């Protein structure tokens, strides 16, 4: 009940912001009858309407995960974001080992298994990507090569 109402309200707010931002779109001097604003405004209106229905006729509450699981999910998201930034400066192997290991631990909850998975995945995937698919992956950070 409550989740749907909250989401409905968020949707209405975002939709209104979207419509407001659509009215700011520049129009070129030679425009067609519809122009670049109309369709986005229609979308925003439809979304706001859907949000309204969700506020007034919410579904049953979904079972949200417990706090500990939410923490695990938060850690996984953070790890993925860090991984996105570290792929280029640190090469493929080291960030992949760490990220795959942490994700594996979040799923399996077995430390040794996760370490082996991390190492195995990073090396195995590196060979597949580099030699079977011919991607130009860099295995180690540039500093290693001097």
């Amino acid at each position, binding site marked *: 009940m409550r*989740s749907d109402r909250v*989401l409905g309200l968020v*949707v209405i707010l975002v*939709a209104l912001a*979207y419509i407001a931002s*659509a009215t700011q*779109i*520049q129009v*070129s001097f030679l*425009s*067609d*009858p*519809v122009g*670049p604003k109309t*369709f*986005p405004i229609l*979308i925003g209106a*439809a*979304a706001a*309407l*859907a*949000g309204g*229905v969700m506020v007034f006729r919410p*579904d049953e509450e*979904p079972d949200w*995960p417990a706090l500990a*699981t939410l923490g*695990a*999910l938060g850690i*996984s*998201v953070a790890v*993925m974001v860090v*991984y*996105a*930034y570290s*792929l*280029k400066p640190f090469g*493929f192997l080291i960030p*992949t080992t760490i*990220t*795959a*290991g942490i*994700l*594996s*631990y*979040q*799923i*399996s*909850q*077995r430390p040794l298994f*996760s370490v082996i*998975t*991390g190492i195995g*995945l*990073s090396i195995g*995937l590196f060979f597949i*990507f580099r030699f079977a*698919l*011919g*991607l130009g992956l860099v295995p180690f950070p540039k500093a290693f090569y001097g």
Partner: protein
Amino acid sequence: MELFSNLAVGFSVALTPATLMLAVFGCFLGTMIGSLPGLGPSNGVAILIPLTFSLGLDATSALVLMTAVYYGAMYGGRISSILLNIPGDEPALMTTLDGYPMAKQGRAGDALVISGVASFVGAFLATIGLMLLAPILARVAFLFGPAEYFALYILAFSTLGGVASNNQAKAVLASCIGLGIAMIGLDNSSGLPRFTYGNLHLMDGVDFLVAIVGLFAVAEVFFFIESHGKKSSIGVKLEKVTVPVRDIVASTWTMLRSTGVGFVAGVLPGAGASLGSFLAYMSEKSIAGPNGGFGTGSPKGVAAPEAGNNAAAGGALVPMLTLGVPGSGTTAVLLALLLTLNITPGPTLFTERPEVVWGLIASLLIANFVLLAMNVPMVKIFVRVLQVPPGILLPGVTMISFVGIFSLSGSYFDLLLMVAFGVLGYVLRKMDVPTVPIILGILLGNAMEDALRRAMVLSDGDPLFLLSSPIAVGLWVAAIAGFVAPMFLRQFIRKPQAVTD
């Protein structure tokens, strides 16, 4: 006779050793992806698209490979449904209803063989249907102007929202999210930026591959983290595999009827394979009556949804190839593949690039026989795949997604966007908001807006022009009916829930 000369062109493309090998490889990979729990056809095809580019394949080969994966995943989805009671993807849900009880009675091998044969019947006949129907529909599609296309897009969204989801408002919301994201970037007709807020990365718009991989693959990883992979621990052992000839013969008519039902459901834009297997199962259940044993491990209950599901998979290719409107989540992913390969689906595809269309159809015919061989005698190999622990599989999927998206553009921004889509997909799916309309919206948003704007240019801004032809009116009526009718029918027809132990 035109058909045979077209087919000859197709087979001349498909029977080259390289293409044939790709088809076989795709079938193998697809069945494996389909049987892995938590990696359905949509996810599987989505994470493979970026990698296909790095192989440097030409358009026909890439298309053959990916559709072979698609068909293979449709076949493979049944394996985890039957043995683990976990549907590999949504259409395979109906297979769990009778497949898992059958497996618990010690007839897992029989269930796998029957469903394999049913998949073959469904997919093979649907490919023939595609061959016959697609050129006709392509000719009809020439009559479509912008007003008709706009109505067709509306129909796709409303059937997808009406039939395939539980709450209309949430389906509308999902479509709007997708369409709203599609608007980001440069405006097609004026070239001025929209919703970019001065961010250079957003000028090109949001790449639909990033959204697809995020919403499907990364979100799946979060679901496994939530359940700690516990879902996959129970399973039924597979002993010996023999061919239950009597059951197969007894369910011949079931397979044929389900193929018909599934194919029609697949052709409807937006309805897709889930509807196909659902309708096939329900109609066979009512034909068999209360004493038919449906739900307790009836071989017919395994054959019906599998034939329906695979027939729908073939049928969904018809609107996708001729009109550019996908009939299901996975065909939406295949449409993404076509667009990235710079092939514009539509009626002109049949006249201008016949080698692509007919090469694809011929490869699908061949792929079906390969899949039958893989899924009946060699099914034990794929059963092994089920034993891959999620602790290895899901991190692997994440890494492949990252490298795939990174290889597309080499920008951090896309990777972050992908993670964001993963979180969004997780939250939305938790709240029962379907994610397929989002993909459809991102894919079709610009085409839909163009159709509307061109229609308005033609009519000088008269909105009634959208209803000016009988085809357009028919599509609008179907769209409204498809959206409204399920609200009333939902009280009478309930989606059966999975069997619980």
